[in-house]
């Protein structure tokens, strides 16, 4: 069992301001005992990567509903790799066409959660993933 609390950065990249999902996830993970940092709106991949380093997080959760995922995600994954942060578990939640999912997973994104996912499923995914990883 990990003794230290799981640290999660919830981020809202891009210009979209629809933050209902991001806020629900942030609160649900916190209620599940994780340490959650919410970046607020309109974060560039650079801002997210440096926040992840500064906060020394285990997980980054991105909420993307605007269709900009194919631009944002590869940029963030490249930055994380360049900064030696490729062990961070990156999750994406939001409106992602199913056809885009295989390429996203190939780029290193651990999981994509589509609309309708329960908060419990996300909590379990993170707990399992980090229990195996450490």
């Amino acid at each position, binding site marked *: 069992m990990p003794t230290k609390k799981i640290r999660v950065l919830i981020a809202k990249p891009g210009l*979209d301001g*629809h933050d209902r999902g991001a806020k629900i996830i942030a609160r649900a993970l916190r209620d599940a005992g994780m340490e959650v940092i919410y970046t607020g709106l309109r974060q560039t991949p650079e801002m997210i990567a440096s926040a992840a380093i500064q906060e020394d997080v285990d997980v980054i959760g991105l909420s993307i509903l605007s269709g900009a995922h194919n*631009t944002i995600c590869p940029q963030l994954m490249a930055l994380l790799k360049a900064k030696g942060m490729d062990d961070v578990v990156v999750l994406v939640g939001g409106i992602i066409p199913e056809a885009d999912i295989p390429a996203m997973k190939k780029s290193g994104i651990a999981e994509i959660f589509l609309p309708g996912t329960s908060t419990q499923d996300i909590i379990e995914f993170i707990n399992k993933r980090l229990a195996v990883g450490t």
Partner: protein
Amino acid sequence: MTDKSKVQTEIATPAAPASPVSPRRPSSKEKSWEQDTLKPTLEKSPERRAEFTTISGHPIRRLYTEGDLQDWSPEKDLGSPGEPPYTRGIHSTMHRGRLWTMRQFAGFGAAEDTNARFRYLLAQGQTGLSTAFDLPTLMGYDSDHALSEGEVGKCGVAISSLADMEVLFDKIPLANVTTSMTINSPAAVIWAMYLAVAEKQGADWKKLSGTLQNDILKEYIAQKEYIYPPEPSMRLVIDTFEFGVKNTPKFNPISISGYHIREAGSTAIQELAFTLRDGLEYVEWGMRRGMDVDAFIPQLSFFFNAHNDFFEEIAKYRAARRIWHKAMVERYKSKNPRSWALRFHTQTAGCSLTARQPYNNVVRTAIQALAAVLGGTQSLHTNSLDEAWALPTEFAATLALRTQQIIAHETGVANTVDPLGGSYFVETLTNEVERGAWDYIHKIDAMGGMVTAIERSYPQREIAEASYRYQMEVDRKDKIVVGVNDFVTKESPLEILQIDETVAHRQAERLRKLRAERSQAEVDRRLNSLRTAARGKENLMPFIYDTVKVYATLGEICEAMRDVFGTYEEVAIT
């Protein structure tokens, strides 16, 4: 942009949902029914659950009778259609006289793509246009700005200058078609572009009819597409009111919107209360500008959500009209009946659409649309079945329009005015929703108004709380979402509309050409005049119009105002 030092997280304080349940006095007949008929039944077979609530968590009784309407007067509380307090609708004949406007929200790609969709929808019998802009446009950035990367044409149409606007409305006569534009922070700029196109077409501004969303308060509360701080943003809104009263008397300069508040997770009562309190805020800022209330209030229009809970939604629309009438007459001493009648557009709830089993969304949307019609809407957008995945395909958008046409022409529900009027349940629920909304309105009054309430994150916190509560109910299966947390099956993906990056390239090329061909000196001169005016107190609409006419871009104009007004950053609440 938020930097690390400004990151803040706060845990919302739990608040109990407002439950303004009516006191009741059951008749002796009802009491004996409870004893003789109900009790034995309950003993034999208990009800499905101990408590029933609406999707918003509002308690619903087993049965409503005259016992629930003891203090209710048909003359005072219901009245007649077209007369105060407008519970039954704002027109005496309602949809018998004229059907609601079928106004499907559309926009994607570049201007020519959306122009083609507009013309297709009009050819299918749609009666008004409604424009969706992409995120860069909504945030006041040109398509070639660094922050626009990956977002151009994705959530709506990309409009960076008058040149794009000319293409958007090419061969669409603005004198005859009413157009709604969903734009907020840069609303004055987009409206100026629209007016410039109308002028070029030779349309008389005095006859132009349509709606600008222009509701900045709900951006701070819910949708978060703001640029400037509240004070200068409100100034821009009031500038459009003033300009509209003088120049475009048939155009609604604002659509005060509850839609996005609901989409952010509010309850029905919160949607109603925050929207109407926003409305009162705009009225008060207009009055402070020195405008006569009855000169500008008749041009204010509203926009509500139509969610799943059928009767709660109908009660919400009926209560909205009653509250607005009361507020106009009692608070602002309005003398003009046109100021008293709340006119509204409705959109079915995007947040109720499911990605799983998407064809179920057709059914949800039809029922939500029916609630809007029974609630007396003036115009309606029905969502497409595929919108939990992407912007709609032409097939899905057509089916959504057909849904409205079936309600209008086949079901018979539009053949009589307020068919639910007098129902014990609907009247009680209308009373309760009204009471719950007044409670919030008074709380916000006590804080000093909506701008202060927003700065204290009060509505934001209430909404976040309600949204979390609902999600937990869904996760626990207290509330069932068909195809999501029950009745789940595996299915194959839908065919969806994909917007590729060629739109962004087309836009960038068009902007390069525009900047090369226009008179840069004239653009600079007019942008400077706008900056100077922004530092003073003048109405900015004429200055914005001047910059638009010489093809200054949306990004340049918004940037000029950013120079003067600064930008807004919220305190993030989770």
